[in-house]
């Protein structure tokens, strides 16, 4: 229990640190913030009057000292108020809640398909390490991890939307719109996971008791599904946790490419228009997700290893 408490305290420290860093970076970024905000508020207009810029500065306390601005933001956040957008002047929280669904849907579908693919490929590969199938699986995985996700996305659009015209190239709304972004993310995830899962499974096969199970006459299928998989899942869980966090990040790029109205598009527009409250909320969200998911994974992992669950000492190498 105390370890979970420690994690929560750790999360608070991480969030404070990240908020401070993000705030610092955007505070000292070059360029006139008032000008950027004016451009976002009144699109299409050129040459703003000094009075307009000054009124923006006064309204948003842009001339206050760094610490005053930061503490003002922090105080409001502690009361559950993430502020209003500099551009749209609506609550950033409601905008955020409105777009999070798209991103979570995309990330989760990609996670499911990516892991299923990685698992199938790894299970095929380990049947005969070094065989043709194994090498093909590694080649597919290497291509996938060498390929930048934006390039893969563009290729997918070119082939399946432009030439074959099977699915829409961009946009949000129907299930068909979800196909290409999911494919891009899932392929990327599959590539990074296949090689890891493969090596985790091979490591699990290397444990000395597996040989004895064979000598006892236990079938290969039973050894794989009832023993090897359990051992391989312990280290794999950690990787999957990290990957889900990466997936949210990858989703940002994919969403921008496919012009989906998710958190990615929101992050891109708010960074470009210096919409500090929105940027801060998004960064806080990504950091919290990352820490929370990894804490959850640690707990699940601890619960699935009896040696750790009961405070025993693991007797063999733990990967």
């Amino acid at each position, binding site marked *: 229990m105390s370890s979970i408490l420690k994690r929560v305290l750790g999360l608070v420290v991480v969030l404070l640190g990240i908020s401070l860093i993000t705030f610092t970076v955007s505070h000292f970024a070059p360029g006139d913030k008032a000008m950027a905000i004016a451009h976002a508020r009144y699109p299409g207009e050129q040459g703003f009057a000094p009075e307009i810029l000054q009124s923006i500065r006064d309204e948003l306390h842009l001339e206050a000292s760094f610490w005053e601005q930061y503490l003002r933001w922090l105080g409001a956040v502690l009361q559950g108020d993430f502020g209003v957008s500099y551009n749209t002047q609506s609550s950033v929280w409601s905008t955020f809640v409105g777009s999070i669904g798209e991103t979570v849907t995309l990330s989760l579908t990609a996670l499911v398909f990516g892991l299923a693919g990685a698992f199938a490929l790894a299970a095929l590969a380990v049947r005969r390490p070094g065989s043709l199938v194994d090498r093909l699986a590694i080649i597919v995985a290497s291509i996938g991890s060498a390929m930048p996700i934006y390039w893969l996305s563009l290729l997918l659009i070119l082939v399946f939307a432009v030439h074959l015209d099977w699915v829409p190239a961009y946009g949000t709304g129907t299930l068909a719109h979800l196909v290409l972004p999911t494919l891009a993310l899932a392929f990327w995830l599959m590539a990074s996971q296949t090689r890891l899962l493969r090596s985790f499974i091979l490591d699990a096969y290397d444990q000395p008791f597996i040989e004895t199970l064979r*000598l006892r006459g236990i079938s290969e299928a039973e050894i794989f599904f*009832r023993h090897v998989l359990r051992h391989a899942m312990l280290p794999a869980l950690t990787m999957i946790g990290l990957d889900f966090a990466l997936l949210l990040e990858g989703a940002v790029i994919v969403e921008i490419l496919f012009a989906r109205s998710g958190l990615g598009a929101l992050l891109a527009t708010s960074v470009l228009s210096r919409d500090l409250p929105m940027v801060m909320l998004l960064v806080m969200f990504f950091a919290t997700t990352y820490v929370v998911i990894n804490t959850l994974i640690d707990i699940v992992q601890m619960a699935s290893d009896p040696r750790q669950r009961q405070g025993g000492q693991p007797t063999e190498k733990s990967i």
Partner: protein
Amino acid sequence: MRFTRPRHILPRPSLTLPTKETALLSIDAMSAAIGQQGILHDISFTVDRGDWLGIVGGSGAGKSTLLKAILGARRPARPQAGSMIFDGVLRPFAKGWSGRPKGIAYVPQSPTHGLDPLRRIKWQWTQLFRCKCCVADYKPIFTALGLPDPEMHFPHEWSLGMQQRLLLAMALVEEPKLLILDEPTSALDTVIAAQVLTEVERIARDKSIAVLMVTHDLALAARFSNQITIMEQGRIVESGPTDTVLNRPQHPYARDLVAHRAWQRAETANA
């Protein structure tokens, strides 16, 4: 219409010999290889009922390959020639039989080699019988070996000595005629190993089970075995009753082993 014979009246793949053969296990001119590389060459020996045969050799002598071949494993080394007669049933190695012959049980060298740490003891016990459609109650054999009720325990919740006795119970529950012990001292501390071996000695005597023990420790083999076979580089170099091998070793390697036995003992005592 196609007639399929029920499985149980198919001719048995192996030949039953007349019972004049007295040895329980006899290996004849057996060889094995990994790829092109020979691992075992011309191995022949016999184990009589009630015997305790110690197979002694350094690492790489082929001891564990031999043991796995007897248990019907085809990997990593593939037996190529020779034959094995166990309990009156002839099995030529070249025929490619696999799977453990009924009546031979195996005790791995340590709990790490025998138990899945992520599965409950009871689950692992029932797994033994799931494929054979029968369930053996653990209570009598656990009591006989001084083991408690496994309840919901995982292996690590028992001491190493208890886990090793559990492995022994898993081997004995099949009522084997031959028990194979794999390096019983290499992974356990000497006190636990000695306890388990004494237990095996008692049960083997009571139930007249023959024991085949593979070890690198000649002193250990001398303490428990009545027959000793010494292997070097995949060949048997010396073989005979324990007294003969210890007092009149012929082969240089065997002489070397015997000469260093006292030193080996002194070292284990100091350790």
